[in-house]
């Protein structure tokens, strides 16, 4: 890959008490890549994503952004997180704000841009995800799929360099999964760098440029989707995919 690495994960270890969830993870994310992280529940993929965003602080090892290590200080974390957005399984839209306020909040309070710019960005990105007509609604008045589309728009308003998705469709009713995946496909086409923890194998196969298979806290395989889905090198990857395809 000729492009410069945006995020580097180096020797990342994460323990919860005595339990080692991540065991020496190493990989790089390059500009424009769409990387899907797959693996069974408990394999550590969500923890990996939360460590990259520092919502969980690594036990050891480091996260580098444009070659610079991110330390656990408010200033460094704020600057870094403003440029690396995150979309959650449970949406986490602010319940005390309307759709519009949710999207304007970060632009005004974190990027310190004026209200006009915040509103302009909010409307632009809400239109991209097809939610602009709902700007006056409260999150509780929306369906799961709508909430997730707003959450994606909110993250886009910060103009992030990388967007992390933590199982963005796992909490959705089956008929709403499509609308969210379509939005993500569009973003991939536009060249946004994305790191996606997902159970949507078809999406991983068709949209991603790289697929990482995790098992028991290790990165077992890190390959292009063509190779990983048709000719996986590792026995455990094969087993996992076999089980998934049967379901």
């Amino acid at each position: 890959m000729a492009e410069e690495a945006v995020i580097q994960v180096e020797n990342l270890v994460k323990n919860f008490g005595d339990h080692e969830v991540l065991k020496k993870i190493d990989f790089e994310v390059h500009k424009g890549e769409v990387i899907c992280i797959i693996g069974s529940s408990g394999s550590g993929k969500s923890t990996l994503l939360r460590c990259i965003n520092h919502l969980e602080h690594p036990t050891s090892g480091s996260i580098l952004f444009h070659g610079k290590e991110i330390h656990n200080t408010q200033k460094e974390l704020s600057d870094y997180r403003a440029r690396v957005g995150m979309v959650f399984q449970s949406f986490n839209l602010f319940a005390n704000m309307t759709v519009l306020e949710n999207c304007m909040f970060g632009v005004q309070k974190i990027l310190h841009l004026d209200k006009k710019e915040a509103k302009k960005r909010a409307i632009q990105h809400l239109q991209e995800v097809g939610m602009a007509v709902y700007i006056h609604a409260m999150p509780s008045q929306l369906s799961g799929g709508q909430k997730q589309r707003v959450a994606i728009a909110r993250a886009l308003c910060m103009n992030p360099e990388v967007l992390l998705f933590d199982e963005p469709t796992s909490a959705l009713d089956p008929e709403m999964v499509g609308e969210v995946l379509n939005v993500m496909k569009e973003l991939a086409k536009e060249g946004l760098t994305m790191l996606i923890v997902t159970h949507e194998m078809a999406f991983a196969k068709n949209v991603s440029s790289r697929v990482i298979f995790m098992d028991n806290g290790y990165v077992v395989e890190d390959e292009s989707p063509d190779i990983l889905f048709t000719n996986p090198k590792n026995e455990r990857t094969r087993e996992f995919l076999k089980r998934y395809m049967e379901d």
Partner: protein
Amino acid sequence: MNALLLELATPTAADGTFTWVWFMARKYAHMFWTATLVTLLVAVVGTLLGFVLGFAVGVVENMKIHPEDSAARKAVTRILKIIVGIYVEIFRDTPMIVQGMVIYYGLRQNNFMITSIAAGILVTVLNTGAYMGETVRGGIDSVDPGQEEGALAMGMSHAGAMLYIILPQALKNIFPEMGNTFLNNLKMTSVLNVIGVSELFLMAKTAGGAYYKYYEAYLVIAIIYLILCFVLNRVFLAIERKLKETKNYELATEYLVDD
């Protein structure tokens, strides 16, 4: 003072309770009115400042010490928690009437000439803060942790997330409890008569003493307390309903074409 009192014919011993109550209420109308205002002043100012203190206490009680925090941060958090813990314990474990005496006479004995109304407000604030802290902590706990994560993940600090996201939601959850606290404070101001706050209880004691008609005088203020609490309770219930309701939103049809 006499000029302020109405010239009324004094009822005789043969007159019934109602006549005496009516006489007391009219004769000391001005005093009762002033005392009502003092009662409200102490209760409103004391409760509002007490809420502010309570929120601060709740936030401190909610602070968590993370293993990855710096040593200085850990130390500051620990000290804050200890101070707040001691304060809350003292004020929850002593009666308000005793707190009033200790604070008022304690300050004056040390040449801090606090007025009784100021001391009364101070006692109410400290008392409310100690009780509200626990309520606020519960209110903060009741907010989904995902709300804070959503804010942190876009670069907001813990304090910012608290201020803009968590506390507004916690406030809504604990509003009924805040209404209760206010009504309770309004009634508890009556104990402040012991440090000479000229609130309703002290007025009834004074008016009753003038004619040895205590039952009738206290009946007057019982009615005043009842009316105040009844009205305020209805106001709080209305606000609570307003906070809870989710208004129907209007579709922003100007953006319909773009979808």
